[in-house]
């Protein structure tokens, strides 16, 4: 049994590799719960409804050009840019799938931290359109 320990996850947003700034990442592929229970049923039946995906990331902040703040802020209020997340930085494969979303940043707090601590910002990315697509090649 192989257990995956996250030390080298890859995150590329709008073609900018921000992996080294990532301290925490959560990819959520979710569907609304549609109740399709019919009369005469003895138990509830459920069907997946509309997808409602998200990617939540905690970054170490960097205000330099083409780094964390500049890359995220450029997409604020827009229709989104492509975000690709992988378990490792290796090429996409069956054991290193990619998760791709047209990501729009929501709840971006560019400055977040206590005195003497690293400025760490948590951002929730929601799809500008579509859902997260998983690929293995």
């Amino acid at each position: 049994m192989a257990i995956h320990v996250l030390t080298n996850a890859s995150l590329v947003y709008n073609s900018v590799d921000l992996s080294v700034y990532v301290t925490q990442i959560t990819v959520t592929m979710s569907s609304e719960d549609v109740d399709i229970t019919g009369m005469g049923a003895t138990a509830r039946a459920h069907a997946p409804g509309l997808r409602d995906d998200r990617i939540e990331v905690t970054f170490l902040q960097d205000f330099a050009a083409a780094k964390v703040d500049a890359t995220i802020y450029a997409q604020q209020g827009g229709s989104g840019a492509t975000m690709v997340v992988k378990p490792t930085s290796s090429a996409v494969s069956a054991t290193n799938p990619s998760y791709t979303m047209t990501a729009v940043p929501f709840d971006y707090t560019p400055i977040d931290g206590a005195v003497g601590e690293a400025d760490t910002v948590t951002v929730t990315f929601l799809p500008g359109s579509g859902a997260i697509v998983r690929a293995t090649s």
Partner: protein
Amino acid sequence: MAIASIATIRAGLNTRLATISNLQTFAYLPAQPPMPCAFVGGPTSLTYHDSMAQGLNILTISVWVLVSTATPTIEGQSDLDEFVSSTGTNSIRAAIEGSTSPQTLSGTVADVVVDQCNGYTIYTTESGSYFGAEFSCRVFAAT
């Protein structure tokens, strides 16, 4: 850029310490420490995976300052008081952190924070007794 080596960080901290006049500074513990002196003691903790892809390591590294007790006791303590003060021309904290933020040790690390000073007391070694104190510095070593 690769994560800075500990040797590079020692050298960078020593360069900052050397901005204090009349203080002899060393990147490593000297065999026969001249007084007064400051030296980089070494890492007390090192975390390797503070971000993905080895983007950030955080080192806690100690810096020591020693003042001879050969001088009159009050004078030795007075000198040490200046070294442990938060501000002033002889402040170890001010010298290491400098006036610019972040303090990158000439571009080798992301930042340095002097968190605290402990152990203000007399240290006895084979070569004598000294007033001294230890500073705990947090070094953000980033790619």
